[in-house]
């Protein structure tokens, strides 16, 4: 605000009428340009989010009007909602295994494709394909059938003699979550491409210097490649984590949260409770809890990044 009136003062001392008009026009033009974004932000993000903060403090079902209950929803969630806790646990389990698996596969193949060989471009494209299809219903449907008891995965296991009997992997309490983790790991294409771009940025001279110092290939990886890649690793980590925290379609189609809620991830629970069962107030509270939790996890990751992410300006 200070700025605005300061600007106005200096405008007045010059050529008041002309410049004021120009100033208004400039501002108006700016706002016209950002208007599409502003409408989207206000109507589809800020407004519903803030309203749902209010609804989270009410008892509000799809058939009735909201009535104020204070913190009751939150208290019930934290003290009496077993599914809330189990869905958090399942979601963390999924994220803790799926994110590192995806990133490790991505990094490993990026290293393989670093050196240009015949057909590298073809392979790179082929490995990238699962990434663009991963979120689709089609892939989830295929996955479900692949790991069902009549599916091809059992055919393999029986053929190589690992298993005598077919089991339904998606209906097994211990393995069901792993069919979804494997699906996540399968889609490592995007981080792979990002790693490849990161690898290109590492100056060749560093490897030559390391070689002169007598460092072998493995030592070069740990003392040159990995440290210089940490900013890219960190970027991938944040992006993938936020996304996987809210995994929905794959679980909803492949296991439907079952068996015994062992794959009931947070987003599916949120959908069931808030929308299928129509507890809008309670669902709003669940949405706010995960928003706050995700923000905290992201901030903590950013804070710890100072310790392990290497930025060139610091090192020199």
């Amino acid at each position, binding site marked *: 605000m200070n700025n605005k009136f300061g600007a106005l003062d200096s405008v007045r001392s010059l050529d008041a009428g002309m410049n004021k008009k120009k100033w208004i026009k400039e501002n108006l033009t700016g706002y016209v340009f*950002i208007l599409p974004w502003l409408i*989207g932000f206000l109507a589809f993000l800020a407004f519903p989010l803030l*309203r*749902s903060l209010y609804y989270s403090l009410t008892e509000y079902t799809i058939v009735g009007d909201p009535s104020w209950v204070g913190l009751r929803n939150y208290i019930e969630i934290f003290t009496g909602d077993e599914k809330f806790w189990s869905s958090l646990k399942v979601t963390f389990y999924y994220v803790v295994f799926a994110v590192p698996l995806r990133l490790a596969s991505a990094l490993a193949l990026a290293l393989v494709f670093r050196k240009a060989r015949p057909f590298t471009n073809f*392979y790179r494209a082929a490995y990238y394909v699962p990434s663009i299809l991963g979120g689709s219903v*089609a892939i989830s449907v295929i996955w479900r059938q692949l790991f069902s008891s009549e599916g091809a995965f059992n055919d393999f296991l029986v053929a190589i003699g690992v298993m005598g009997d077919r089991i339904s992997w998606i209906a097994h309490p211990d393995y069901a979550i792993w069919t979804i983790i494997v699906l996540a790991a399968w889609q490592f294409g995007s981080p792979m*491409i990002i790693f490849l*771009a990161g690898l290109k940025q590492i100056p060749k001279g560093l490897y030559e210097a390391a070689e002169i110092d007598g460092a072998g290939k493995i030592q070069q990886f740990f003392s040159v490649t990995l440290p210089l890649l940490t900013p890219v690793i960190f970027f991938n980590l944040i992006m993938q984590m936020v996304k996987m925290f809210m995994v929905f*379609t794959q679980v909803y189609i492949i296991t439907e949260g079952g068996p015994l809620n062992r794959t009931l991830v947070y987003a599916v629970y949120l959908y069931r409770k808030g929308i299928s069962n129509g507890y809008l107030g309670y669902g709003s509270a669940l949405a706010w809890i995960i928003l706050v939790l995700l923000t905290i996890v992201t901030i903590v990751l950013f804070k710890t990044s100072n310790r392990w992410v290497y930025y060139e300006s610091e090192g020199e």
Partner: protein
Amino acid sequence: MNLTFSQKEKLKNILFHVLVGGFCFFMLYPLLWMVAGSLKTSGNALSATLWPDAMQFRNFLEGWRGFGGVSFATFFRNSFFIAGTATIGQILLASFSAFGFTRTRFIGQKFWFAIMIATVLVPGQILRIPQYIMFNQWGWVGSFLPVILPQMLPVPFFTFLMVQFVRGIPTELDEAAEIDGCSKFGIFFKIILPNLKPVLVTAGIFRFYWSWNDFMTPLLYLQSVTKYPVSIALKMFSDPNAITNWGAMFAMTFLSILPTIILFIFFQRYLIDGVAFSGID
């Protein structure tokens, strides 16, 4: 055994192709299995073999009939309508707003820009219940509006991506046009927009993919079968408790990813460069 340098390289290359190619086959197996399944007879469709027992093109005809008297022609039309409008709207409006953030001056610019950046990481899933309550109160449930509009207005991710690109276009171009009496709008449409072509293509393809694959929003808002996009139809069509015609299910699954694959084949370069530049997933 003594190998010359070039022999060693050759051996390395062979090893590379065996390992990387083998793993590639393993990675693409689920997709090949689906394509094979679309041609197998129904009783055999789930078997592991990639060699169809028959060339059962009938699966496609049978699948195309859909369910509830509504064919996949309707579902595909709906999907193209949703993803098409979302894509065209998104790339035009996001670049328009990105221009505002970078090439105009106005009060509160830094503030709004900071807000935009801060919301890049807010996952859409968290907004579903709050948005659902609102759209429900507005009486929009059952129409395409709540599915399309939020995907059409600039989302922070694409807006930020475009901002990065607009910043790379030299301001001398704007200044020259301004001297010639061009307004800000003229500069945007005549100078910036044509220069944004690569990022418009990249963003457009990703917007199309995400909207095409979107499952949760149509699940929430669309209630009549005639409005279903392919994603929802496929889920209904493939219900494991009801389905008997697996060949037809695979055939429709295959068709549902065909637009994605075709776009990928034609615009590979844009996609891979775009991912490398921006970290799109």
